[in-house]
């Protein structure tokens, strides 16, 4: 069994450090626009975050989040302590059981989403985890991915895109996932070279050809992973490297060993098609899925920002968020929550004590998004219609969570509701509606829900039923 962050370990101090809703805290009313903005920037806006936005405004809050190093975050570190897989190297982890490593990395991701105060950083970690997708269920991925998570994705999530791309290309987890350890001179394997162009940088319409894929694959021959001593470390093997000259993307690449592909990486990181692809993906993730002129104009401004800041991810993101979420809001479009949002925002908003463990991971799997297991290199889609076809697992998660039937996770609804408990069903429903949806549920649905749940019920059981109903409602599925 993997070590888990035990529920019992959660003292009031943890709660305080994570800014979770506590007994006497009411949730400050913010505008629905700010609630929705915060729902994109965080995994569910906590009372503390609402209060902060009321005080300093969403734009200033975004600025703070763009520099995560300045945000105190001990609470989450304490919760992550039992998860050794987050700290160990590939050589140590290769001696573990695969399932333990996978579960701990999944737990770590969910606990950070729920409890970290660096919420925008976690949002960007999710974004890059998808962009540079690796499944732990292929080959040695299960013991290689933790280092990739730590040293590639988390280290550069709000840093420099060129450095992020560079780190990803030298990441053993990526090279193994896309078969580059089998990319040899004379008969190259195109898999990594193709996805590097198609998914990580230029995009399928980015103007490269099949010939470019083959030439880049030749540059990448010999990029492999150490087998015995220092197992799981990057290694360039000159004996496996194609010694000839190459011409990828119109570049003249002379024989220079490892340096050849690194030249191409730099070219790709600075390529305008890469910038446009990243900008569009960020606009889609944070602002709108509609591909119209105003979305294109916002992406164009983000491209400029990336150029002006010499590849700063935070620089590009700032423009997307300030113009798209904090500004006039003419571009904003609704999005259906992905499974990680459904789970993390319920835990966060309801102040759950959780180990992020197996029960929750199974719920994520049933909804279709078990972390670090998406099989194909495109990563889980950022697409509302895709996530709209499978509601039943979301309903079952809502019921199990609200009724405290989720192993390793505990809600304390009476404490959360405080003086409101047993006041009146309507008051409970409206208050929980404000917490979970930003505003109370509208009249027809509210009345229908109460009519179905209310009569003849033990009043003490009502909060959990109402909570289950709200978490299962269509309104909760949006963010």
């Amino acid at each position: 069994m993997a070590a888990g962050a035990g529920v019992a370990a959660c003292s009031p101090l943890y709660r305080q450090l994570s800014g979770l809703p506590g007994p006497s805290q009411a949730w400050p009313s913010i505008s629905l626009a700010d609630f929705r903005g915060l729902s994109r920037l965080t995994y569910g806006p906590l009372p503390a975050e609402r209060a902060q936005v009321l005080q300093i405004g969403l734009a200033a809050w975004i600025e703070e989040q763009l520099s995560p190093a300045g945000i105190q975050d001990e609470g989450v570190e304490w919760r992550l302590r039992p998860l050794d897989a987050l700290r160990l190297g590939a050589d140590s982890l290769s001696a573990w059981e695969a399932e333990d490593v996978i579960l701990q990395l999944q737990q770590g991701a969910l606990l950070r989403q729920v409890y970290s105060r660096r919420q925008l950083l976690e949002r960007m970690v999710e974004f890059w985890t998808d962009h540079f997708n690796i499944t732990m269920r292929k080959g040695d991925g299960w013991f290689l991915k933790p280092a990739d998570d730590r040293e590639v994705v988390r280290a550069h999530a709000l840093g420099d895109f060129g450095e992020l791309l560079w780190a990803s290309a030298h990441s053993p987890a990526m090279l193994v996932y896309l078969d580059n350890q089998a990319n040899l001179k004379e008969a190259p394997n195109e898999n990594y070279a193709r996805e590097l162009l198609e998914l990580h940088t230029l995009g399928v319409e980015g103007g490269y050809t099949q010939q470019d894929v083959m030439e880049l694959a030749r540059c990448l021959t010999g990029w492999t992973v150490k087998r015995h001593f220092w197992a799981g470390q990057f290694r360039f093997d000159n004996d496996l490297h194609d010694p000839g000259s190459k011409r990828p993307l119109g570049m003249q690449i002379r024989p220079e060993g490892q340096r050849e592909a690194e030249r191409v990486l730099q070219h790709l990181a600075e390529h305008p098609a890469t910038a446009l692809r990243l900008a569009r993906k960020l606009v889609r993730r944070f602002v709108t899925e509609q591909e119209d002129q105003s979305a294109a104009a916002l992406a164009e401004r983000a491209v400029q920002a990336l150029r002006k800041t010499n590849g700063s991810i935070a620089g590009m993101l700032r423009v997307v968020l300030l113009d798209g979420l904090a500004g006039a809001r003419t571009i904003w479009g609704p999005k259906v929550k992905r499974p990680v949002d459904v789970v993390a925002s319920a835990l966060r908003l309801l102040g759950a004590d959780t180990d992020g463990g197996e029960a929750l991971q199974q719920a994520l799997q049933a909804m279709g998004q078990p972390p670090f297991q998406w099989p194909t290199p495109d990563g889980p889609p950022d697409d509302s219609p895709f996530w709209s076809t499978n509601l039943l697992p979301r309903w079952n998660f809502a019921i199990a969570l609200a009724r405290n039937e989720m192993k390793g996770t505990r809600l304390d609804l009476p404490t959360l509701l405080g003086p409101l408990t047993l006041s009146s069903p309507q008051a409970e429903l409206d208050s929980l509606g404000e917490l979970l949806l930003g505003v109370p549920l509208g009249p027809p649905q509210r009345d229908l829900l109460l009519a179905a749940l209310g009569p003849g019920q033990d009043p003490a059981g009502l909060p959990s039923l109402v909570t289950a109903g709200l978490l299962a409602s269509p309104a909760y599925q949006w963010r």
Partner: protein
Amino acid sequence: MRFAAERREFFQVLCQCPQHAQATHYARSTWPAWMPRLAFAPAKRGVRGDVLVVVFLRGAADGLNMVVPHGEPTYYTNRPTLAIPRPDDRKAAGSSRAVDLEGFFGLHPAMAALLPAWQEGHLAVVHACGAPDDSRSHFKAMELMERGLADLGGPASGWINRHLASLDTGNTSPLRAIGFGEAAPRSLRGVIPVSALRSIAEFHLGGEPEIAGLLKGGLAGLYSGDDLLAGIGRETLRILETVEQLDPQGYRPESGLPAYPASDFGAALRQVAMLVRAEVGLEVAAIDLGGWDTHFAQGASDGLMAGLLADLAGGLSALHADLADSLSRLTVVVMTEFGRRVQENASLGTDHGHGSLMLLLGGNVEGGKVHGSWPGLSQGQLFGPGDLAVTTDYREVLAEVCRKRLNNPAADQIFPGFTPGRAGFVR
């Protein structure tokens, strides 16, 4: 630019929502319609056709090693380690040789379970089949194929959903179309709400029966609005009701018949058979089978791909035997986004290619035949960097299946911009 307009409309109404909701200061649990209600001509009334089962092999399956051109010497020179030995190759173990079909092509030995279906004329192969797109990108190719398009400018909906939307069979079953898995595939997406489900046996609302009953009432109220999620929510509740009447665990094929493989794919096909027998209104089932992106250690007669093929062929042959008395109203289509390079790579695998194949299984398939013209594998006959050429557009096959087996002649709506020509794959 009617299709771009459809996409725009898809999201337009939504964008006005926050202001609306803010004005009333209530969360509208029903967002205004965000699906275009009428993207195409109104549906024509028509009689229900076959149950269509679409199996999509994700990752670009190597058609050359599924139905092997053993009469083609260049196949063997290009694949020194991956080739499947000729049916008459005395140097190879009998169990590793291709199973001859008609002298030139043979089945991969792991697909031998399909030989009876072939011999009975219920299995057809369309070789050198595929799409015009040559991006060799899985994601672009799959998206185009599932949307039934030649370029990304067309409608956002999937071809199967457009078939359902353009033919009103009077069938209001919530199980008219389902996708097996965690999300419905792109081909099922569109104006007709379609649900994904992993397992009919596990399709129930959690908690004690009493609680589940209360919440079902609550959910009916919450999902009483008029938007995409509300529509899907109501369908989900109706499926729950229908499924309660079934006994999925009790369903077994007759004794003596081949068992379904103990895999997700086998389970999905077993559930298709159960739904067909239960006559609950199933018209289309879409099933994904992944793992075909065999850049590395693909294997030949044994190995990675052989395992996938055994699952595929085992499942299809079990379905064929199980539904033997219903084959006249069943058509199964197996397809993939593109094929793989003729020449093997250094990692005992194959890189992205172009042409692959389709399989057709059913009582009214022109079976026992390899359809399509064979372009050959010699220099000058290959496409691009050394790939099998495409001589049959996949839409040719699907359009004929829609017209003849599903009674839907609206090919212009299902495959906009494509004019079906020569066919003869099904009766």
